[in-house]
């Protein structure tokens, strides 16, 4: 076992895959001698060569298109987009090309690309270093969207994503990159995609979250338990698309109360999808309104970001509302 934070777990997964499989290539801006602006690829170019850990021209659309071409020819390409806020120039390559190659070719041409990118707020990054655009990609058939919330999952999910034959958008919660360490196996292991994880058992309310919001959700669940004697079940979704609806449905049938916690804007965010699922599948079990705690429908703010992000207090308020309903 080793004690690693999320960032180190990501690097460890990349190291293992570069070691295991000569078809794995990394490419991105500043990922070479600089090791990435967050240091996720530190030391990897030195170890595997500039031909496999490639510093690229500053062009996100080019990085993704280049990775798609490599993958068509048989590589497992793992591009890094420095901040997910810079992914939009590559949106056409992701949505029109990456997500559709298998389908449009009748299964003949496939694109094993895992796009890694730090996402999320709370780092004093303002509009362009803080966004959480997972819903845009979850709305695109053909992509998998994966978001870890802890070091163990970060390593196991990233290895699974690279080995998966489908394109994956792998969003890394940068606010908690170095927030805490966890004992994880030193060797190679995987965590399955499309499988949620029940991280706290409870009978009263189901809370679903993922990524950096999971910490706030767990904090709220602990306070609810200690101070209000409300026992929340907390589900870490881990894969946003295609997602594990069964785990959520089973939990909500038991609790009859549901809150999703996501940091992206509210309207048409991923919480809306989860609310619709509950509305369609478990309405007979519901004891209270289906709730969302989200960011607001504004461009990501700067100095007021902590008022924007779902805090434990805001989650507790939603818990209180539906408990008292």
């Amino acid at each position, binding site marked *: 076992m080793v004690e690693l934070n999320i960032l180190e777990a990501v690097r460890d997964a990349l190291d293992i895959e570069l070691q295991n499989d000569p078809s794995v290539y990394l490419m991105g801006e500043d990922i070479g001698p600089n090791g990435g602006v967050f240091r996720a690829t530190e030391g990897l170019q030195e170890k595997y060569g500039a031909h496999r850990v490639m510093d690229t021209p500053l062009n996100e659309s080019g990085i993704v298109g280049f990775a798609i071409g490599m993958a068509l020819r048989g*590589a497992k390409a793992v591009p890094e987009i420095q901040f997910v806020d810079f992914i939009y120039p590559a949106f056409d*390559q992701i949505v029109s090309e990456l997500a559709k190659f298998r389908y449009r070719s009748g299964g*003949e041409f496939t694109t094993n690309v895992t796009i890694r990118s730090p996402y999320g707020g709370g780092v004093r990054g303002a509009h362009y270093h803080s966004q959480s655009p997972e819903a845009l990609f979850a709305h695109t058939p053909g992509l998998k969207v994966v978001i870890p919330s802890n070091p163990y999952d970060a390593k196991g999910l990233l290895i699974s994503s690279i080995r998966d034959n489908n394109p994956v958008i792998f969003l890394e919660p940068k606010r908690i990159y170095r927030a805490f360490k966890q004992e994880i196996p030193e060797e190679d292991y995987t965590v399955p995609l499309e499988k949620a994880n029940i991280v706290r058992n409870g009978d009263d309310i189901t809370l679903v979250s993922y990524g950096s919001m999971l910490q706030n959700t767990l904090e709220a669940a602990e306070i609810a338990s200690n101070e209000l004697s409300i026992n929340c079940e907390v589900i870490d979704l881990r894969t946003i698309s295609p997602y594990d609806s069964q785990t959520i449905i089973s939990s909500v049938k038991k609790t009859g109360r549901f809150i999703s916690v996501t940091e992206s804007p509210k309207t048409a965010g991923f919480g809306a999808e989860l609310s619709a699922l509950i509305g369609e599948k478990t309405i007979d079990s519901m004891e209270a309104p289906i709730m969302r705690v989200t960011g607001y429908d504004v461009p990501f703010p700067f100095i007021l970001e902590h008022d924007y992000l779902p805090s434990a207090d805001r989650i507790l308020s939603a818990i209180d509302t539906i408990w008292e309903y």
Partner: protein
Amino acid sequence: MRKILQLDGSIINEAIEPSIESEELLKWYQSMIQLRLLDQKGIRLQRQGRVGFHIFTTGQEAHIGAAAALNNQDWIFPAYREHGAAIYRDMPLEEIINHLFANDLDINKGRRLPGLFGNKKINFVNPSAPIGTQIIHATGAAYYASQINPEEVNIVFFGDGATSSSDFHSGLNFAGVYKTPTIFICMNNQFAISVPLEKQTASNTIADKAIAYGIKGEQVDGNDILAMYSAVKDAIKHAQNGNGPTLIEAFTYRMGPHTSSDDPSRYRPDEEVEEWKLKDPIERFKKYLIRKDLISEEENSIIYEHYDKKINELIEIADSRPKPKLETMFTDVYDTLPGSLLEQWEEVKFFTEED
């Protein structure tokens, strides 16, 4: 501008005439004829309402020379008028025609507009419809190919409009930086649907754009199949000597409309089309073959009749086939069907009758 064949089929300068086996030259010619016939029949089928769409290729058949310069292991990234490259690589006409009808035997499972097909068996990649996106794919594929098979090069086709796209910039810039064995062929037919070249770029030539990327650029007569072949042969040599990519501007003209939905009389004069008729790539190559005694007018008619009959028969067979199965709406989104798609498939089955 590189040019080998005169309009009368004679050679400008014997020193630059590529030396090619007779049988191979005839294969080029037969590929051109099949493509021309498919173009004529495709639009008729569209006008009859038997297929939904048609993309014209007449006038641009000399791209077959570019494909002929490659080895079969080299990947081709077409735009959407390079079906001749697939024919040259022996993609069976049945497969192309089944694709036009999007029937149950279509290798792309009835998911694409007629003409936008790909075929893994011949390393002919599925194009999309957003313009230029394949240019950077070709660069990435060539980069990985250079890592695992130093003999390999690949080729990407795109139109003059695509040179304005961001992916053109990405593709040439990355290729220049990594010196990838990529051959970029701009089929400059001088119109992006209706927009003429001078509204697309202020560069003197498209080949000039190579200078900014630090790569080799060359203008070629895009209606001269021998020039296309020899330009690509030189580009292959250039790549295999470690000098990286080449941008080839093939100067040509689209004789037909952009697609079955386009009316070119709105944006170009008939006289211009008439002028380009004199430069027809098939007629010019035929004259060359006649001069070399490889074909006679009579044999030429036999070839046309042979393919005309064959294609007509294949059309009737393809048209009688059923649509692809309902399940093909859901397969290949991912390698396996997630629960959400299984559920949606069940739903559509309930509303659809299928044997």
